[in-house]
């Protein structure tokens, strides 16, 4: 993952040396992907105050299921005849698969520990993360797995600036998912119940909201979004790897914290900021230190506003 990222950066740097707009477009693409992953962290944290370290692996699993499905369809020959159907199906299958994975993981590894100290659950999450990434390695191999390469080559050219078809797809799909999530969380009754559970579990139970169901739902939605991000990364960088969940995982978590953990709008904003900082930092300052910039921005923001950009005081939220 890191290697492919670096290669892509090199490619980017060579072709579009100083194009600010180009960087902006790349930044939005990457930022959108981070935002999708960050949402899972932030939602899970909001509901059960857990840093779900396995979330990066949900993302990786999504990327793998995506490549498996797309290769399968290519093998069947559907890819040429019905590309839109194949892509949609792959996205839906990967998201479903990861939701299924996440709900099971929550039931097995987190739910029995809900009353224990938070470090116990955190360690359990780390264990799940190690288990899942090695499970992916054992079933899928140690090496990069390439996405069908003929997908979405090319793009629109405006002078020196190129907007890839793939970038358009990624950005628009991200936007659709984010809007859908916002509608779900802020406009529906079940979304209201999710927010209520995050704020006060006992009281939610007293008004007939079953917290177990809501927690499962939160995990499912978070993992589904991460899976979508996984396919996008696979398409964008051309391949997936069993340990690809780690680096984007911690960056997305940084994004969630940057935005104020537990806050959905904050996670989206944080994702965009981290993506932008990374692309611009790599483009204008130094490609080697691109990961450092994301963390420096995070530390700087938290220094001046310890609860993140849009976060409430966490001590207040635990009534």
């Amino acid at each position: 993952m890191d290697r492919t990222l670096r290669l892509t950066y090199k490619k980017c740097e060579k072709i579009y040396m100083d194009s600010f707009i180009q960087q902006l477009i790349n930044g939005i693409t990457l930022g959108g992907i981070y935002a999708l992953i960050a949402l899972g962290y932030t939602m899970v944290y909001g509901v059960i105050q857990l840093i779900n370290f396995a979330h990066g692996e949900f993302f990786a699993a999504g990327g793998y299921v995506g490549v498996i499905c797309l290769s399968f369809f290519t093998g069947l020959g559907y890819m040429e005849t019905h590309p839109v159907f194949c892509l949609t199906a792959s996205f839906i299958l990967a998201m479903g698969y990861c939701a299924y994975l996440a709900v099971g993981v929550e039931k097995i590894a987190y739910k029995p520990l809900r009353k224990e100290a938070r470090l116990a659950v955190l360690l359990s999450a780390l264990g799940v993360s190690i288990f899942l990434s090695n499970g992916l390695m054992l079933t899928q191999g140690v090496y990069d797995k390439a996405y069908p390469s003929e997908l979405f080559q090319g793009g629109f050219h405006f002078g020196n600036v190129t907007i890839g078809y793939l970038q358009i797809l990624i950005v628009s799909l991200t936007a659709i998912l984010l809007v859908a999530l916002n509608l779900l969380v802020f406009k529906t009754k079940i979304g209201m119940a999710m927010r209520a559970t995050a704020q006060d579990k006992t009281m939610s139970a007293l008004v007939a909201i079953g917290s177990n169901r809501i927690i499962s739902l939160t995990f499912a939605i978070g993992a589904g979004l991460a899976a979508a991000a996984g396919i996008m990364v696979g398409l964008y960088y051309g391949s997936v790897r069993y340990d690809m969940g780690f680096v984007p995982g911690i960056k997305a978590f940084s994004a969630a914290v940057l935005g104020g953990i537990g806050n959905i709008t904050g996670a989206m904003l944080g994702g965009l900021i981290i993506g932008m900082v990374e692309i611009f930092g790599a483009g204008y300052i130094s490609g080697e230190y691109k990961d450092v910039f994301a963390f420096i921005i995070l530390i700087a923001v938290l220094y001046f506003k310890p609860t993140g950009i849009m976060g409430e005081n966490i001590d207040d939220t635990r009534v």
Partner: protein
Amino acid sequence: MSAEPILELKNVHSGYGSIKALKNVSLKIYPGEVVAIIGANGAGKSTTLMTICGIVPIEKGDVLYNGMSVKNIAPEKLPPLGLCQVPEGRRIFPRLTIEENLILGAFYRNDKAEIQRDIEHVYSLFPVLGERVRQQGGTLSGGEQQMLAIGRALMTKPKVLLLDEPSLGLAPIIIRQIFDIIADINKNQGTTILLVEQNANLALQAATRGYVLETGEITLEDKADSLLHNPEIRKAYLGE
């Protein structure tokens, strides 16, 4: 007063881990009554309500609702059966609006038109709430939060309403208003009410019957009027 109690606690023992908060508590609440539990700080009043709702686990004994044991029923399954609590400190969802808080009260119900009607009804009971539908719960004053909490509980269409310290931290004029509403709910909607209060005078005036809880045990049970005139009670709880 009908013969069958709608809510009954039979020799209930419960507590938090090693701490025993309730010891052998038995209560009977009949349909249509207003029953008050009075007692000092830390006597186990709130624990009694939390035990009824299944939040605090029962160690021994049983809780019967309409003759059915609710000991092993998850807390979130109780409001649909008509058992609802307004907990101590109101516990409004602070970052949800007034309207959202009320809608969540009706979480298990799916009859949209009816829910809308009930929301209007709550607004007519508490006009203050109706004026600021979109305000966040956390920004309301104590009295408004109490009104919202009662309104939210009413949205579950309770047959038995458990009220924990509705007067806590409120100005006397607001307390009066809230107790009027409680009496109104009892009379006009036939809701049975179990009221827990530190303010014994207030509670016994509103109630038909009363229990006295001391360090986790029921020490006295009587008509509210008799308790009000009981010299010991007057001395211990009414400050005479």
